């Protein structure tokens, strides 16, 4: 049988195989159900894009913090108690009127977990990884409905080593009166990946 003849598994088959693997690992003293539940709880409830949004809001309101964030994102995030696994060496890249940034991992699924949580499926699936480095303007416009004018340079950051990139989006106009919590609520996961806009003041929750 050629390698490419491997039959695809159904959801039931995958679930059974992973459960079997899990059972064997538990019996070998390597794993526990409680460790599985704890890890899931962390990334479902504690670590996610709300943390990155908090960092962005701070950078928008505190120029000195922003300077520190752009100089050393890991240290600046640590000031807010944010950091850890898959964010040991983070680099924040700033969007401006003339530069738009987007992140990808073409070889696997590298992503800054401490600030964005675990990546969405599309970030790990072949289409995004294949195309964002080759036709980023088209992918952003056609797949994400996010048009970047030709005059704005697009910089794509392929996370090929252990540096974890993420995007500092531009603060939207008309948000001068908003506080850090309202500002953080505007910051979307997609805006920190570089594939979507931040919200506008019109969509901000009431102060």
């Amino acid at each position, binding site marked *: 049988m050629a390698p490419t003849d491997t039959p695809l598994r159904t959801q039931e088959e995958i679930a059974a195989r992973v459960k079997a693997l899990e059972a064997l690992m538990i019996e070998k003293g390597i794993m526990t159900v*409680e460790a599985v539940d704890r890890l899931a709880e962390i990334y479902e409830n504690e670590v996610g894009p709300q943390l990155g949004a908090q960092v962005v809001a701070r950078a928008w309101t505190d120029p000195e913090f922003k300077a520190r964030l752009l100089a050393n994102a890991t240290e600046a995030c640590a000031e807010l108690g944010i950091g850890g*696994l898959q964010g040991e060496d983070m680099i924040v890249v700033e969007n401006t009127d003339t530069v738009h940034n987007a992140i990808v991992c073409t070889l696997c699924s590298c992503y800054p977990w401490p600030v964005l949580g675990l990546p969405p499926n599309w970030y790990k699936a*072949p289409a995004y990884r294949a195309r964002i480095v080759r036709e980023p303007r088209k992918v952003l416009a056609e797949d994400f409905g996010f048009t970047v004018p030709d005059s*704005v340079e697009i910089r794509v950051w392929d996370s090929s080593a252990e540096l974890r990139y993420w995007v500092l989006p531009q603060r939207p106009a008309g948000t001068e009166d908003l506080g850090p919590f309202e500002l953080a609520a505007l910051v979307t996961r997609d805006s920190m990946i570089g594939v979507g806009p931040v919200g506008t003041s019109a969509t901000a929750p009431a102060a």
Partner: protein
Amino acid sequence: MNGVFDLGGTDGMGPVRTEENEPVFHAEWEKAAFALFATNFRAGLFNVDMFRHGIEQMDPAEYLLSNYYEHWAHTAEHYAGKAGVIDPEELEKRTAFYLENPDAPLPGRTDPELLAFVDGAVKGGAPAARESDKVAAFAVGDRVVVAGDSPVGHTRRARYIRGRTGVVTATHGTFIYPDSAGNGGPEAPEHVYTVKFTAEELWGPEVGDPNGVVYFDVWEPYISPAPATEGAA
């Protein structure tokens, strides 16, 4: 290795399919597959680079068509089998059992140290930067060319940058070298650099976006000084 996982620049992959209000995990088994990364790393069954290489060795057709956490289950199984921690026949038997009895319970075991490890690892991370007395051979502004050959085994030298010329934009110090550690070798730290490639350099003047660049991180052995170009300052 040259494989389908090395997707940068591949055509024909179709549209990006996003999901509104996507959950962190789509099924219970995904949580276990995710956790295997941390627990089996702790057990010394693989390092992060080997973990990636285990995924790279999947059946390429299955790789493209299966969910990402299935990839993680594959690599966990690959290294647990290789280390003799699991018996492939036993795994088949258990799989058949859980297929017949999907709600049958898992073995009960409690391990406070493992729980403490999980919290500690999530907060503290597992840095890949390593001290080294190696002197960096390149500096910001250097024009470099990426080696064009096709290495056997694990590498992070993606095909779309091989043979291409770019400019070093940042130096990061020394990190574990995946071309060694991912193939079961020592950590062998090497300097890491960010290299900027223009879209025209990567894809050609007719296809490359004139106002687009890609930044790619390389380990020092991947690059060498670019030959001087005619008319270059």
